[in-house]
C-alpha cells in the first residue's frame, strides 16, 4: 500500500480533441503542502477536478490516501477532502451560516469549527451570500474547505480577492492544517505565498507535469527584469555578464533580465549615467515560462 496521499499514474484527461492533462505521474506525501503551479489553461484545475472525480480520466488513475481510487472510491475519498474551487459559485439566497450548516451536514460533520474560522477571517456569517463582496464570498469558500478538518485540502487560488491581512490568515490556516497532519494541494500564482507555505511545487505546462521541485530550488531560479534609461548609450556588449540577458534595447533604454551578478550590472550601469530605473514585477508564471521555455519536455 502506497503512503502517498495523492498518487497519479499516467493520468490523462482529454475533452474530445482538447487536451486537459497528459500522462501526469505525481506523488504528494502525507503532511506536505504541495504547490501546483502553471500558466492559465495549463491543466491545474483539470487535475484538481479529476482528483475529486468531478472530471473522469481518459487514461491512467489517481489514488488518494494510499489505496482509494478517485473514481471507484470517490465518495469515501471525498469524505476526507476539503475543496476550494478557483471559480467559487455559491447559493446566493442562503446566509453564510446556513450554507456552512448545510455543507457541514452533507459532509457528515457536527461541530461548530466553522464559527471559529469565520471569526478568524472576519466574516459576518449572518449575511446573505448575495450581499457579500467578492472577498467575503471567498472567505465562505475557505471556511467550507477547512471546517471539517479534512485530511487533504485541495485549494485553487485560495487567496484570490482577499486583502493582505486575510491572505496572511489563510496562509496561517494552511500552516496549521499541515501541523495538524493534513496534506495540502495548493494552486497559486503568487510566488511569495508559495514560498511562504509550500514544501514542494509541481509545475504543469500544456497539460504535462514538467517538473517537481523543492521550493528552495524554485527560489534560486528567480530573476528580475530591470529597465534602465541611460544618459549615455552603453555599448552593445556592456552587459554581457553571467546570469544577465539583454532583452530589449531602444536607443538609451535597455531592458535586462538578471538572475545573478546584480552588483556588477549596477556598477556597469552607473558608468553610463542612469537617469531612470524601472523594475518590472515578475510573476511566477514568467519564471516558469522563462526557465522551461517553449518546446522543452519533461525536466
Amino acid at each position, binding site marked *: 500500500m502506497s503512503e502517498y496521499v495523492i498518487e497519479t499514474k499516467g493520468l490523462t484527461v482529454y475533452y474530445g480533441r482538447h487536451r486537459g492533462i497528459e500522462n501526469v505521474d505525481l506523488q504528494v506525501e502525507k503532511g506536505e503542502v504541495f504547490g501546483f503551479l502553471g500558466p492559465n489553461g495549463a491543466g491545474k484545475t483539470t487535475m484538481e477536478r479529476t482528483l475529486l472525480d468531478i472530471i473522469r480520466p481518459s487514461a491512467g488513475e489517481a489514488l488518494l490516501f494510499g489505496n482509494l481510487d478517485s473514481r471507484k472510491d470517490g465518495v469515501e475519498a471525498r469524505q476526507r477532502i476539503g475543496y476550494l474551487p478557483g471559480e467559487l459559485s455559491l447559493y446566493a439566497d442562503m446566509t453564510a451560516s446556513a450554507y456552512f450548516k448545510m455543507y457541514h451536514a*452533507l459532509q457528515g460533520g457536527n461541530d461548530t469549527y466553522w464559527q471559529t474560522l469565520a471569526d478568524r477571517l472576519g466574516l459576518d456569517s449572518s449575511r446573505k451570500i448575495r450581499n457579500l463582496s467578492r472577498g467575503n464570498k471567498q472567505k465562505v469558500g475557505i471556511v467550507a474547505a477547512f471546517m471539517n478538518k479534512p485530511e487533504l485540502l485541495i485549494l485553487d487560488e485560495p487567496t484570490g480577492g482577499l486583502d493582505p491581512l486575510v491572505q496572511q490568515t489563510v496562509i496561517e490556516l494552511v500552516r496549521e492544517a499541515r501541523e495538524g497532519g493534513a496534506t495540502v494541494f495548493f494552486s497559486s500564482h503568487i510566488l511569495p505565498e508559495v514560498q511562504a507555505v509550500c514544501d514542494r511545487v509541481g509545475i504543469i505546462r500544456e497539460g504535462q507535469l514538467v517538473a517537481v521541485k523543492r521550493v528552495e530550488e524554485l527560489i534560486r531560479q528567480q530573476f528580475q527584469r530591470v529597465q534602465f534609461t541611460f544618459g549615455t548609450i552603453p555599448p552593445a556588449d556592456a552587459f554581457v555578464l553571467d546570469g544577465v540577458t539583454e532583452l530589449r534595447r531602444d536607443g538609451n533604454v535597455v531592458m535586462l533580465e538578471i538572475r545573478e551578478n546584480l552588483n556588477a550590472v549596477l556598477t556597469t550601469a552607473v558608468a553610463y549615467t542612469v537617469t531612470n530605473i524601472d523594475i518590472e514585477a515578475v510573476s511566477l508564471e514568467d519564471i516558469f515560462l522563462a526557465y522551461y521555455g517553449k518546446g522543452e519536455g519533461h525536466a
Partner: protein
Amino acid sequence: MLRLFLHEMRVRRNGIIGWGIGLMLLPVVYIGMYPEFASLMEDMQELMDLAIYQAMGMNMGTFEAYMASSTTNMIPIVMSVYAVINGTGTLAGEEEDGRLELIVALPIPRWQIVTVKAAAMALSLFLIILVVSAGSAAALIAIEGKVKTDIAVTPLDLALAVISMWPLVTSLALISLFLGTITPRRRIASMIATVIIVVSYLGNNLAGMVESLELVQTFSLFHYFDATEHGLVEGQAAGDVLLLTAVMLISFGLAIVFFQQRDITVGTWPWTKAKMT
C-alpha cells in the same frame, strides 16, 4: 440525503410560491368571471369550432368545457414552461453557473444527487399544482350559486382533475432534466425540450382533428392526459397515468445513467469524451 433534499426545497421555495400564486390566478380569474359572461358562451360555440381553437384544445360550449379549457387544458402548457426551466436548470443550469461543482465534490454518490434533485423538483411541481388545485376549487365554490344548478363537476372533481396533471408536467420536467445531462449547455437542453413540448402539444391536437394522423397522437405526451370536459368529469384513464409514470421513471433512470458518466464543469457532448488506451 434528507439535508440535501431540504436544501433543494429551500432553493425552490420562491419558485413554488411565485408560480403557485401566479398560476392559481388563471383559473380563479377565468372561473370567477364566468357568471359575468355565461350567456355569451353558447354564442361562442361556433367560434370554438374554428380549427385554431381546436388546435389549442379549447372548447367553451358548456360550463364544464369552459372550466376544462381554463384549467386542465391551459395550465399544463404554462406549467411546461416551469418544467423546462426547472428541469434544465436543476443539473445543467447549476453546472453552468458553477454551483454544482461544490455539490459533486461532496461525499455524495451522483445517483443520490440526481435522485434528491429530481424528487425536490417533482415535489415542487406537486405543490404548485396543489395551490392551483385549491384555487380552482375555491373559485368554483365561490360561483356555484351564480351559474346553472346542474354542474356535472364538483369542486373536489375539479381539484382532483388539476392534481391529475402532475404526471404529465413531471414527465416534461424529468425529460428536461435528462436532456440537461446529455447536452453541453442548458440552452441547448431547453431548446430541445421546448421543441418536444410544442410539437407534442400541437401535434396531439392537430392529429385529433385529422383521422389519418391519429397514429401521430400516440407519440405525444399530451395524448395521455385528458384535458377535456370528459377528463374533468370522469378522471384520467389508469393506463395513461401508468404510461406517464413510465416516462417519468425512464427519464429519471436515463438522467442517472448519463449524469454518472458526465464530466461536470466541462460542457461537452457525452460522446466527445475520448477514451484512450
